[in-house]
C-alpha cells in the first residue's frame, strides 16, 4: 500500500523530531546543572521538561502504533487461524481508533480553556499554556487520524482477502529491524 508507506515515512520523521526535542531537553537540563555549579541558573528546567514529555508522548503514539509497538496480549489471538487473527486485529484496531478519537475529542476542552482564559503556567516563567497545549493536542489528533486511516486500510485488505498483508500492518509483532 502506497498510502501506508507514506504514513510510515512521515511518522518516522515525526519520531526523529521527537528524538531531537528530547536530546535538546537533556542538553538544557545538563546546562542548567553546570550553570548552577557556576552560581547561576535558568530556572524552570523541570517545567519545560514536563511540556517536552507531554508533547513527545502524544506525537510518538502514532509512530509506535504503525511499528506495532503498543503492547497486546495475544494468548487467544495467536491460537486462531489467519482469518481469525485478522478479525482480532481489526476488532482491536477499531476499538483503539474509537478510544483515541474520544481521547482527542476530550483533550480539546483543556486547550479551549487555556485559549479562553489566556492561561499562563503557575510559575515564574508564566508560560502561555496555549503554546504547549496546542502541539500536545495536535499530537493526539494526529494519533486519532492515523489510527482511523490504518484501520480503513486494513479493512480494505481484509475484504480483499489479503490476510497476511493486513497482519503486517495491524498484527501483534513489531518490525524485526527495529529490534536488532
Amino acid at each position, binding site marked *: 500500500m502506497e498510502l501506508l508507506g507514506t504514513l510510515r515515512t512521515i511518522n518516522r520523521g515525526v519520531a526523529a523530531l521527537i528524538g531531537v526535542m528530547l536530546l535538546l531537553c537533556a542538553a538544557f537540563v545538563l546546562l542548567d546543572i553546570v550553570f548552577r555549579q557556576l552560581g547561576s541558573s535558568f530556572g524552570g528546567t523541570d517545567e519545560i521538561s*514536563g511540556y517536552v514529555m507531554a508533547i513527545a508522548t502524544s506525537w510518538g503514539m502514532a509512530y509506535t502504533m504503525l511499528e506495532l509497538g503498543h*503492547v497486546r496480549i495475544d*494468548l487467544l489471538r495467536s491460537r486462531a487461524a489467519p482469518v481469525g487473527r485478522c478479525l482480532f*486485529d481489526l476488532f482491536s484496531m477499531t476499538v483503539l481508533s474509537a478510544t*483515541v478519537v474520544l481521547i482527542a475529542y476530550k483533550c480539546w476542552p483543556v486547550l479551549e480553556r487555556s485559549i479562553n482564559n489566556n492561561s499562563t503556567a503557575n510559575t515564574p516563567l508564566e508560560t502561555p499554556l496555549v503554546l504547549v*497545549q496546542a502541539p500536545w493536542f495536535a499530537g493526539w489528533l494526529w494519533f486519532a487520524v492515523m489510527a482511523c486511516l490504518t484501520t480503513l486500510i486494513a479493512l480494505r485488505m481484509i475484504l480483499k482477502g489479503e490476510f497476511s498483508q493486513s497482519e503486517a500492518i495491524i498484527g501483534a509483532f*513489531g518490525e524485526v529491524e527495529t529490534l536488532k
Partner: protein
Amino acid sequence: MITYVAVGLLALLSMSIPVGIVLFLLGFGIDWFFSSFPLIRGLGNMVWSASNSATLIAIPFFVLLGEILVRSGVATRTYAALDRWVSWLPGGLVHANVATATMFSATSGSSVATAATVATVAMPQAEKLGYDPKLFSGAIAAGGTLGIMIPPSINLIVYGFLTQTSIPQLFLAGLIPGIGLALAFIVMVAIICTIKPHLGGERRVFPLADMMRALVHLLPIILLFTMIIGSIYNGWATPTEAAAVGVAGAFVIAGAFGGLSFKMLTESIYGTVKITSMIMLVVIGASFLNFTLASAGLGQELDAFLSGLGLSPLGFILVVVVMYIVLGFFIETLSLMVVTIPIIVPLVIEQGYDPIWFGILMIVLIEMALITPPVGLNLYVVQGARQSGSMSEVMLGALPFAIVMLLMAFALIAFPQIALFLPQALN
C-alpha cells in the same frame, strides 16, 4: 468494583486490545456503572497532567541511555564479559542475564528501560545457543525489575515525593535489598538448572586470564554509574535530573569505548520513542482508570477494609503485602503507587513502621507486579524484544523469580535492617 475491574480487564485483554486502551475502557466502564458523576469530563485533564511530568521524562532518558549503550556495542561487551564470569554456574547464560540486568540497574532508574536494554542484547543469544526461552526471558524480565530497587530509581523518587521521605536515604536503603535479590535470583536459577539441566544452557568455564581481561569491559558501566550517582550525592543534580546526566554520560562512554554514528543515533531515537510511547499509553490509561476508581470510592473501600480489620502490626503488614500482590496483577505500577500510597502509608506509619523501610518493601512488591500477568510491563517489554514465541512463555518463566521476590518481602519484614542498615550507618 475490584471484581468488575478484574473480570473486565481479563475479558478485554484476551480480545488482544492494546493494554493502554483496555485501561481507558475500564475507566469508561467505572464512570458509566459506578459513578453518578460525569467523570469522562476529566479525561482530557488526566491525559494532560499524566504526561506533563518532569519526573516521567526520566523514562525516555533512561531508555535512550540504554539504547545508546546497546547500539554502540558497549552493552554487548558488558554482557559478554559477565558471561565469562558467571556462565560456569548451572544455568549458564541465564546468570549473565541477571548479572547484566543488575549492572544496568545501577545506571537506570526505570525497570522497563533496564529490561529493554538487556532483552535487546541477550535475546539473540538465546536463540543462537538454544536456550529454553521461558527461564531465559523470565530472567531478563525479573532482572530488569532491579532497575527500580538499585539506585537511581524513578519509583523511589515518586515514593519519596508522595510520602515526604528523603530520596537519597531511600536510594541507600535499596542498595542491599537490590543486590540481595540479584544474588537470590542467581542461586534460584542454579538450583532449578541443577535439578532440570535442560532449562539452562551449556555451562562454560573460561580461563582465568580470559576472565581478568574481560573486566575491562565492565569499566564503562562502572564509570557511568559513578557519574549518575556521584552527581546526586555531590549535590550537583536532583535525582530526576540525574537521568539527563546519564544520557550525556552514555554519549561520552559510547564515544570512548564503542562507536558513535549518525545511524546508531537515529536508531536509538526510534527505539526510545517507540518504547516510551508504549509505556506512556499504559501510564496515561492507568492514571485515568485510577482517577475513576478514586472518584468512585476505591480509597474509602480500601481504608474501611484495612482499618476495620483491627489487626496487629505484623498482621496488618501481611494483609498489605497480599493486597499489593493482588492489585499488582491488574494495575500498572506507577498508578498503583499513586493510588495506594496516600491511603496505605499513613496507616503503616501509624502501626509504628519506618517509612523508608516500607518504601523498600513496597518496591519489592512493585517489582513483583512488573512481572505478574496479566498486566506486567516488563513481561511486555521482553516479549516485544523477542521475534517469536508466545507471551505465556515469558509469563511462566518469570514465575519462579516472583516467588523469590515474595521471599525477599518476608525477609524484609523479619529483618528490617536489610533495608535500614545502610541509611542508618551512613547518617
